[in-house]
């Protein structure tokens, strides 16, 4: 067996973790936008969000275990979860540990979501937007492959995709289902000789309705 296998495994699992993490956050951002189709129903995308996030944790464990076992750099198991105590690159490894801890908190609260306060779950889940850039900074700061052309292209694409998704989410964010603005008054003047009444205005989703649910 190649004696560098742990080192390569640590590097590649870190890179794959970034891709999976990006896929997770993209699916998470797009969920409330009600993205979906007949072939990709919303529950399937929500399931992908969950399953990819679980897969990410597995990859992150592989990432941490392999780099801790490898003796090319002096990194310990504790460095994976305790930030800023490492002998090697404490700042950049600390970012990785913070991100890993945040992701664990996200996973645990999401698995317990039906049993805990929903507001607590939601406020913790917003930390995804913190953990992802921290993880990316960790990868760029300490990743052996991050500053190569391929690494920069991957990181750039990930940033572009997430920024685009966030912009989409902000533009098309949830609007209240009922428009509380008073209805616009109908035009007072009636064309002379208009026999037919004006057609009913077409209601779009989200507009006020008097129908009770």
């Amino acid at each position, binding site marked *: 067996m190649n004696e560098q296998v742990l080192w390569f495994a640590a590097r590649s699992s870190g890179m794959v973790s970034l891709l999976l993490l990006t896929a997770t956050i993209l699916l998470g951002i797009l*969920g409330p936008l009600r993205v979906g189709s007949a072939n990709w129903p919303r*529950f399937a995308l929500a399931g992908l969000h969950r399953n990819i996030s679980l897969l990410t944790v597995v990859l992150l464990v592989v990432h941490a275990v392999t780099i801790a076992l490898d003796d090319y750099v002096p990194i310990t198991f504790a460095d994976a979860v305790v930030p800023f105590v490492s002998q090697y690159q404490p700042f950049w490894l600390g970012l990785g540990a913070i991100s890993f801890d945040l992701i664990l908190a996200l996973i645990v609260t999401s698995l317990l979501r039906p049993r805990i306060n929903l507001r607590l779950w939601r406020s913790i889940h917003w930390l995804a937007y913190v953990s992802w850039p921290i993880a990316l900074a960790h990868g760029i700061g300490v990743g052996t492959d991050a500053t190569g052309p391929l690494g920069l292209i991957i990181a750039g694409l990930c940033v572009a995709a997430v920024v685009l998704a966030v912009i989409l989410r902000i533009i098309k964010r949830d609007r209240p289902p009922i428009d509380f603005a008073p209805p616009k008054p109908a035009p007072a003047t009636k064309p002379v000789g208009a026999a037919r009444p004006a057609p009913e205005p077409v209601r779009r*989703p989200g507009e006020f309705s008097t129908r009770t649910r």
Partner: protein
Amino acid sequence: MASIPQAEAGQFLRVNPITCVARGMCAELLPEQVKLDEWGYPILKGDPLPPHLVAHARRAVAECPTLALRADPTPRG
């Protein structure tokens, strides 16, 4: 840890219209009992859950992004 009572056969699905955000996953997962109105909010059939739909109902309840869907032993009224 307090556990949520799971949906059982014979129970009735209920939706909390205040917390519901019209994501629509309940209607995808349980079309036998949930239809969507024109704004995407669920309209429940109101029948007791038949045994063969219990597993699907549990999944629909668990997937609701705001936990607005619940199963209740008593019918609406």
